[in-house]
């Protein structure tokens, strides 16, 4: 059971680090939003699941699962609202012809 918790925590930190590197390095606003919308949600959810497995079944682990479910719903919603706001105010998507 503890090995499962360590595996969840390390996988979650891996995906969170990938999301951070993607937000830092990708060439366009929409591609950066892609990194933070999916990889960050998966990383945080996996990490919280690992912490809940480490805690065992109690009120604290139920609350941690509640945070994970809320982030799983709220983080893509916030990303979608942000993408729509940016598109309506005229942020151009990145194309290959314009160079890097």
């Amino acid at each position, binding site marked *: 059971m503890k090995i499962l918790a360590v595996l969840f925590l390390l996988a979650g930190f891996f995906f969170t680090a990938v999301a951070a590197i993607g*937000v830092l390095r990708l060439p366009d*606003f929409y591609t950066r939003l892609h990194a*933070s919308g999916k990889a960050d949600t998966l990383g945080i959810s996996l990490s919280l699941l690992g912490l809940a497995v480490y805690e065992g079944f109690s009120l604290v682990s139920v609350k941690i699962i509640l945070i994970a479910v809320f982030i799983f719903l709220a983080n893509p919603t916030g990303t979608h609202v942000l993408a729509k706001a*940016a598109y309506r105010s005229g942020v151009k998507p990145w194309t290959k012809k314009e160079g890097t």
Partner: protein
Amino acid sequence: MTFENLFIALVIGLVVLVMLMLIRVYKGPTVYDRLNGLGVIGTDAILVLVILGFLSRREDMYVDIAISYSILGFIGLVVIAKYLEGREDSDA
């Protein structure tokens, strides 16, 4: 390797990720880039809060703080995005 060392290493790694996101918040070309970086900082801070609760053995208190922080971060992100929606001068 005990869980204490693993938690301390995870907190240090997450603080490094928050520093990287501060670079994006500082030099983002549009205001939406800054907002995106602030959202990623918020979700990382939730994880840091829960891990700090496990480190100091007060996890029942820190988990409640993390719940309210996640809800407030989401509402703040949506409100600021709706406030900025439709503006032409987005390179602020």
